């Protein structure tokens, strides 16, 4: 045995002086930094976020005022570098301001679904038995509807607008998140260290907090980020159908709908909102893939 001088008088001090180990998340972070593609798309998304939040700094024209005299100007017009839409509003301004709505409608529903679905799923996965059956069968009921139909039905009942769009999309995304949370939690529950924690006399809530959550949040988070790309498209789709954001708000899906008639006149301008939806959705998708790969660390 070592001499008495090593015996920690103040354990916290020794703990601080002790060599730090490399935690799982640190290794994920290091792998992420090595992944050039993920870094690139994350940079693009961050740039988009900055531009969208600080829109007044990046745009010259007001996105809501237009002049019929200046309608459907092509790309590269002096003063309107991306052209104008069918009412004469500057397309670049509407894209940037529209990004606010689109990103909001794309990210917030997934975030809310993560909170609600994650809680219900982990509860079902850890408790098992009757609680699990009730939650999973209710989830199956919602799962029976394709997500776009579910979203349309809900907004059809509640009416259009950003709030209802977010609500409808949140409800559509809760079932898949419940399913993956339950699956991962149920797997973790049977591992030896959870049994050891139970053998220590820990109560279920304590075990979930200290042993289940930190093992389960990773996969759930990766899955949720992959849902963002789908959510952006769904939100744009709802606006395209007239069920989402209402005019005169700028939103990429709504802009696509409005510019449909102009497709023969000014195809490039009409396609721009679609390009934006595509780029943003693709970036979220790639970012989520990169995150999943980085998290596949062989421990």
């Amino acid at each position, binding site marked *: 045995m070592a001499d008495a001088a090593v015996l920690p008088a103040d354990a916290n001090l020794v703990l601080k002086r*002790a060599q730090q*180990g490399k935690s799982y998340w640190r290794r994920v972070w290091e792998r992420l930094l090595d992944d050039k593609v993920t870094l690139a798309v994350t940079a693009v998304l961050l740039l988009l976020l900055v531009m969208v939040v600080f829109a007044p700094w990046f745009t010259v024209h007001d996105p809501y005022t237009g002049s019929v005299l200046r309608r459907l100007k092509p790309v590269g017009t002096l003063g309107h570098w991306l052209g104008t839409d069918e009412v004469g509003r500057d397309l670049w301004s509407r894209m940037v301001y529209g990004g606010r709505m689109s990103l909001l409608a794309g990210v917030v529903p997934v975030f809310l679904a993560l909170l609600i679905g994650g809680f219900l799923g982990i509860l079902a996965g850890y408790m098992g038995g009757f609680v699990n059956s009730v939650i999973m069968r209710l989830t199956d009921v919602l799962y029976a509807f394709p997500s776009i139909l579910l979203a349309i039905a809900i907004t059809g009942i509640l009416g259009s607008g950003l709030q209802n769009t977010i609500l409808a999309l949140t409800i559509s995304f809760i079932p898949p998140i419940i399913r993956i949370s339950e699956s991962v939690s149920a797997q973790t529950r049977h591992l030896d260290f959870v049994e*050891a924690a139970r*053998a220590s*006399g*820990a*109560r279920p809530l304590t075990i979930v907090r*200290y*042993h289940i959550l930190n093992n389960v949040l990773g996969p759930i988070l990766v899955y949720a980020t992959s849902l963002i790309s789908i959510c952006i498209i769904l939100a744009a789709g709802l606006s395209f159908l007239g069920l989402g954001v209402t005019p005169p708000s700028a939103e990429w899906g709504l802009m696509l709908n409005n510019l449909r008639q102009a497709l023969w006149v000014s195809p490039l301008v009409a396609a721009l909102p679609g390009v934006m939806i595509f780029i943003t959705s693709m970036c979220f998708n790639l970012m989520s893939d990169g995150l999943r790969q980085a998290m596949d660390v062989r421990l």
Partner: protein
Amino acid sequence: MPLLSVENLTKHFAVKGGWLNRTNGVVQAVDDVSFAVSNGETLGVVGESGCGKSTTARLIMHLIARDSGRIRFAGRLVGAAPGLSRRDLHRQMQMVFQDSYASLNPRLPVVTSIAFAPFIHGLGKAAAFKRAMQLLEAVGLEPLQFANRYPHELSGGQRQRINIARALALEPRIVILDEAVSALDKSVEAQVLNLLADLKAQFDLTYIFISHDLNVVRYISDRVMVMYLGKVVEIGPVQQIYRSPKHPYTQALLSAMPSMDPRRRTLRAPLSGDPPNPISPPSGCRFRTRCPFAEKVCEAVPPELLAVAASGAVACHMSAAGSGHSRADKTVAH
């Protein structure tokens, strides 16, 4: 008074399947098992895979619910209201599992894993971590080097030391070691066994050591219990079991051990085949299908665990006077 007393412990697992997931059969994993563990001794539990050793351990630890039977710790009944609660039992009895890696939360530094149990039982964070550091030292790991490491940064032997430290964190009286050294290299196994012996003396512990390695059990145990297909077939002091085993299964197990002496090699395996299906065990004595001395009475009547010699017991008709077996004593001694 024995420290731990197990009476008539039974656990049957339902086998579901078929149309409506109905119960097709029952696995009689543990059937009417009774034994006692005295304070300060090491009870070795041996048997083939599937004989119910690990299930018995989990039943005693109350990790799975028993079907019937009573468990007493220091005379107090566990589970019922005036006796010991499950939570209090866990403060007295802890367990070390076989898989050293799966036993540790991969997301927590090892010192947190050790400090978890005292922390949730009311000890403050600082005190819990202090105890964890002291235990790290007690199991032979330098706290400065190992406290903040993660399980994947340790070797198998080091991880098992962490598991032992974790089991000792609540200062239990009994530690159940469920094949705790089976997955380690031989040299590491020897070190951990010596560590266990040191800790037993230092902390005044009682061990229940489950293993299928007969040499290790002989080295570490004071008494040995032999299980077969969910039942106890023999129990007794280690020298008595190893020198003069009474039950044919024990005899076969011991003669199946490879000999270290090239002049006395083990030529024939005395035990052949696999244990029968625990869903439908043989009637009467469960060992009769592989026993060279099986007779009619073995098929009809299951043998009881009866005391023989100094402090041992055997469940075999050959050792039960008046049972009707040709090799048993004819009359029951009064």
